[in-house]
């Protein structure tokens, strides 16, 4: 036997014998992603396709779900192939059960259910937000962080509670992602508009005053959106700049508050908006001032992906938790603080 082959064979034997692993399917909104992760936390594969609505339009749930349904079979095959495994090698099938868009969620759940029944695998519903957080902890090695969750459906600060994640502060109306997307749409960008707004903001020079609303540890962005829509005669770059400066400063302030009040030493930033360089810069300052370490997650895993579902799948599997296929649900508005997270105390 050739050396390369032997090596590979030993490695396969190694993973094959010792480590449990499972398939994770993410399909809450724009992204359909599939990933295989093993119990050591090694991401064996992570593939995805992102649905892009036409410029100036928001996500259309049924169009997005059609996109996901089309891409799903190939992506599942790709994820297994990239991990050099077959579906038989999986110890469980995990899927994103919410919160998100009904039609999109159902694509993932239906597939997971089918695979589970056909191949006799335990099925595990995973909360999308918990997925972001736990994958973030895995990738950054955080143990007990203040978490800033900035995904499409969440703008929250969380800390670990008793077998759960507890909301420390959150938006009272729009999420940061929605604010950015809706502003983007008002100036003709397609959603998600984050990256294009970030680019545009770099050319902004003049700061336009926008409502800055912090209430305790909570935030409100709806007034800012209303205001900025009335200023559309100004240069878009200035508006994008001012929106980022104001909204991010609000997020930075409540993050600083959370660090000051809890005395925790790690700040973990997850979700799509985490990729924004200006926000990271601000949060670095915040962490510095509070003597905490900022834990940015690799850009490739900041946005939605299968690994955020597969990894919690591993954790639930270890805890002996799964659902019966007929009980595998979707919940469009699943509250993160109602999710049982047995590995956190």
């Amino acid at each position: 036997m050739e050396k390369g082959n032997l090596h590979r064979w030993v490695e396969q034997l190694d993973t094959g014998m010792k480590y449990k692993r499972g398939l994770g399917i993410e399909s809450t909104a724009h992204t359909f992603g599939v990933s295989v992760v093993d119990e050591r936390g090694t991401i064996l594969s992570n593939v995805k396709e992102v649905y892009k609505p036409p410029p100036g339009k928001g996500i259309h749930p049924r169009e997005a779900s059609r996109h996901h349904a089309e891409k799903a079979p190939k992506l599942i095959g790709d994820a297994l192939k990239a991990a050099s495994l077959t579906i038989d090698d999986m110890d469980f099938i995990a899927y994103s059960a919410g919160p998100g868009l009904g039609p999109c969620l159902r694509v993932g759940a239906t597939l997971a259910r089918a695979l589970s029944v056909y191949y006799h695998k335990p099925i595990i519903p995973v909360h999308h937000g918990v997925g972001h957080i736990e994958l973030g902890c895995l990738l950054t090695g955080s143990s007990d962080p203040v978490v800033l969750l900035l995904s499409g459906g969440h703008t929250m600060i969380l800390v670990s509670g008793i077998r759960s994640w507890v909301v420390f502060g959150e938006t009272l109306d729009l999420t940061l992602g929605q604010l950015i997307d809706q502003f983007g749409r008002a100036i003709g960008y397609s959603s998600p508009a984050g990256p294009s707004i970030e680019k545009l903001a770099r050319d902004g020079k003049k700061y336009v005053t926008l409502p800055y609303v912090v209430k305790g540890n909570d935030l409100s962005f709806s007034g800012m959106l209303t205001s900025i829509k009335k200023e559309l005669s100004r240069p878009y770059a200035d508006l994008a700049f001012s929106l980022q400066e104001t909204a991010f400063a609000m997020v930075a302030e409540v993050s600083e508050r959370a660090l000051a009040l809890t005395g925790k030493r790690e700040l973990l930033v997850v979700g799509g908006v985490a990729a924004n360089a200006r926000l990271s810069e601000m949060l670095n300052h915040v962490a510095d001032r509070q003597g905490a370490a900022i834990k940015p997650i690799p850009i490739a895993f900041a946005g939605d992906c299968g690994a955020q579902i597969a990894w919690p799948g591993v954790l639930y599997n270890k805890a002996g938790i799964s659902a019966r296929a007929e009980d595998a649900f979707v919940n469009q508005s699943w509250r993160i603080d109602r999710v049982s997270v047995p590995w956190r105390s």
Partner: protein
Amino acid sequence: MEKLIKRGAEADILLGWWGPLRAVYKVRRAKPYMVTELDLKLRKARTIREASVMPHARKAGANTPYIFYVGIRTFTIVMQYIEGLTMKEMLDDKPVLAAELGRTLSKLHSAGIIHGDPNTANFILSDANRLWYTVDYGLSFFSSELEDIAVDIHIVKEMLAAQHKRVFQEAFNHFLTGYSETAGHHGLTQILKKLNEIERRGRYGRQLVD
């Protein structure tokens, strides 16, 4: 001469003297990560707000430190030093203390004052006279709107759940009991209904499509 005793999210708290009196210097320092216009605007507004609401709060029946000096251009408030433990340090062992938080907040609300940051760290039990003092009025404002009152209570609930997780339910019940003892013109039932609505808006079914 002044000694830094606390670094809050928006201000440094220094302990020093005002003439012969022990005094706290609350200094809102520049935040290097904010654009200057926004930073100056916020620091000025909050300094003024804090200094102007505190006397009203006292009139409403909430003990607050006396203010000795306000420096608008230096964003500094010099006030009476309240020596003692904060409720944050005591609540986990004595959840019933939350009733006091409820009583005080209710008095403020009845007087049309929204505290804006009703955190247990902002309630100090004075060693000198065993009275509870409320500090940190930088986010406070005047309003009698049901919505604003309910948000203030939402903040309490969230804060108890996140920072006092082991005694959360018990403490929140005590808080509500204390609050209802001095109910303002919005009855507690009405406030709780609004609270429920706010929580739904926040965490349930946030519409991804809009």
